Each structure stands twice: as C-alpha cells, then as structure tokens.
C-alpha cells in the first residue's frame, strides 16, 4: 500500500467509527485522538478495524507511532511493504 492508498483506508476506517470526521480537515501531524475526538475505545476499534481489513496488527507499544494521521499512514505503509 502506498501513502495515498493508506490514507484512503484510514478515511474509510474512521468513517465507520466517527462518521462526522473529515480526514482532510485534520492536522496530519497532531494527535489523532484529539483531532478526531476519539476515546480509547474508539482508538482500539480503529486499530482493530485495521487488523480486520489488512491483517496488520499494531501492538500497544507501537501506539505512539500511529498516534497521528501522518504516523498512521507511514506505519501502515511500511508494515504492508514489509509483508510483501
């Protein structure tokens, strides 16, 4: 998955959790949970949905790396690359 595809994926996953959030309106470098007003349950559901869709599992210790839109995109792009 390249960065654009990952971003589209993130938009879709977010839509299932917080339908009113517009990914393009978020600061990509800022904390995603605050930007999208996700609580810890929402965030767990996001990571869970990512796993369901892609098989990519984000361990808890890596949560800081996926804590922003940019971080999420980079992490998932790298993880999907290394899986090929």
């Amino acid at each position, binding site marked *: 998955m390249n960065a654009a595809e990952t971003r589209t994926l993130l938009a879709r996953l977010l839509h299932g959790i917080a339908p009113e959030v517009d990914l393009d309106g978020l600061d990509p470098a800022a904390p995603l949970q605050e930007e999208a007003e996700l609580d810890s349950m929402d965030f*767990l559901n996001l990571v869970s949905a990512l796993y369901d869709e892609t098989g990519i599992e984000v361990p*808890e210790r890596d949560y800081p790396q996926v804590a922003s839109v940019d971080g999420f995109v980079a992490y998932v792009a790298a993880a999907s690359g290394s899986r090929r």
Partner: protein
Amino acid sequence: MPSLGADMEAGTLLEWRVQPGDTVHRGDIVAVVDTEKSTIEVEVFEDGVVEALLVEPGTEAPVGAPLARIAAVAPAAPAAAARPTRAVAAGRKRAARPRKAKAKPAARPGTAEPAPTVAPVAAHLRASPLARRRAAERGIDLAAVAGSGPGGAVVAADLDRATVVPAPAAPEAAVPGPPGRREDRQAAMRRAIGALMARSAREIPHYHLATTIDMATALAWLAETNEQRSVSERLLPGALLLKATALAAREVPALNGFWDGSYRPSPAVHLGVAVSLRGGGLIAPAIHDADRLTLDELMAALRDLVGRARAGRLRSSEMSDPTLTVTNLGDQGVDEVHGVIYPPQVALVGFGRVAERPWACGGMLGVRPTVRATLAADHRATDGMIGARLLNAIDRLLQHPEDL
C-alpha cells in the same frame, strides 16, 4: 411505554418487532422506541402471547401507557381461562425497575386493533435516530436507502444522497440536512439531562470523596496481558476500573441501589456506564451483573454497549436499571470528576485520567501512573464512612489485577 431512565416522560414507538399471535419470552425485543436521548429496543418482561398491539408506529406515548397486550401463557387448568393480561413494560414513572411494574389493564376493546402493517423489512432495518426522524419528516422509505453507517446502518447523510439527485462525486461530508433538526435533537437531549440533573441537585444532598490510586501494578499487568493477545481481545484500563468498581459495589451494598423515600439496596450490580455521544450529550446505560462477568466478558460488554449507545441501539433494560453509575473522563484529559448522581441511584463513581504523577512510597519520592477516583454519594442513604469504604475497596482490588 417503559421508563427508560428517570429523565424520560414520553417516547415514540418506531416499529414493532412482533405481531399479534406471536409467542414472546422474557428478554425478547418486541419494539423499538425513540426517546429524547436514543433509540431503544424494548424488551418484554414476561413470557406470553401477544394479543394486541395498542400503539401504531410513529405515535408518541407517555411513560406508563400500555403499548401492547400480552396474555400470560394459559395454564392447563381450564378454570383459569381468564388469566389477567398485562401490558408490555408499563413502567411506573420514575421507578427504576419496570420489571416489577404491574400492568394496567389494557384499554378499550376498540383500541385493540393490531397495527395494520409492520413491513417485515423494517424489522431489521438499521438506521440512526436522526435518519429515522428525517426520513419520517420527508416521507422517505428507509428500506429504500443504502446505508453507509456502521453495519450498513442508514445515517442522515444517506438520506441527502437519496433525495438529492446523486452527483457521482458527492462529497461524504455533505451538510447533514436542515440544521434546525439536529439542533432540536441536541436541545431535547440537553433539556432531558438538565431536568434530571436539576432534580438530582435539588433533591439529593451530595457528599464528595476522592482518593488517588496507584495504577503501576494494574497497568503493568495489563500491558503484559495485552502483549500476548490479538488486537480484538485487548483490554482497556477502563475495563479494570469498571470491574473493580463492580466488585466494590457488591462489598458495599449501601451504595448500590435506589432511593425512593427510603433506601432499597439492589441484590445485583448493574453498573451504569456514562457514554458521551458524538455530537454532544450523554447516556448512561447499564452493564448487567458486572460483578459476575470475567474481565474479558466485561470488556466485550463495554465495547458492545458503547458501540450501541453511539449507534442508538440500546435496550430497555439497560436504560432502566443501573444500580450505580461510573463516569470515566480520563480520555478527556481531566484529573478528576466531581459527579452528580443519577436519581434514583445513590452514588456515582468517577475516574480521571491515568497519568504519571509524583508518588511518595516507603519514604521515597518516585513517579507512578495514578488515577484520581471520586465518589459522589447521597447523604440520605449513607455517610462518608461508608463512601470511604467503597473507594478503599476499589483501590485494594486494583492492586491485584490478576484477581479481577
């Protein structure tokens, strides 16, 4: 019409899930009702056969009004042919347990006409409360709308796509309908919360206690546990806090129950969980028998409950019988919460965020993850000594997470 929380005065019947002649069992979902706060699935409280549906979909009915007539299953003895019939969930207003409420005899025979049509397709239709409202206003058949929400649920934006000529590149973020309606719902919810909280502030002499709990052991155990689990089985710190509170509530029954002129302890622990809704507002449905669930079961129940609260798919029993409510504002970044009790409950437990803070222990100053736990309790029912017992129990239980 059951009382789905002490702040509810009336509800609108959205759909029937049963037809006259259907056999129902306690706990079956028989109808869907819209309140100011949410769409609620109404469960039946006893076994029987549906004789008549008394309220048409789309009709608003006050709390306590009969919705349907259900005949108790006829016993073998022929003499008992005229078993009393009972209306579905005619809850006493303000009473926290519709389960106990005895029905009023159902109304005039003329009203016993069954609702003529309940389209079968409507029975399993998923739609947000807002979408239902708008669809009703605009005369849109929800069954004909493709849903884009969770689980294919129809959300308000879908209606816009359904009514407006569909532009191929229509942005997802289409303005959700006339702004006035959304504000109506918001305003209704604010009014409902305001009325209940004003009653609480007026009637309940609150006292407040707080304590700081060392979370180092609990979080270390949690990290280790989650490390070995797939993502769908991970636990959140909030599940530990809930379980500890549920067990503590069982230990201190004086804080787990209802006030209606005098205190009535509850034999079961139905933990109310305050869930903030997207777009504003708050709802506090119950996790039943939370003290008896394993941590995994409690986590699953919490996940399910939060999801359904936000999707507007709660069940009547969840709305009507919490015995003690927990509010966790940790994700909102505050240190502590001084709660307001949900009448007719007599206590509310609050948690702030789990954060690293200075901590003195054994003559040394260190840094530990801690959480501020607070209790708001009803002075008519208990004094601070009892309240302190609850907070101390929560603290003690959290020091042994493996036993939770």
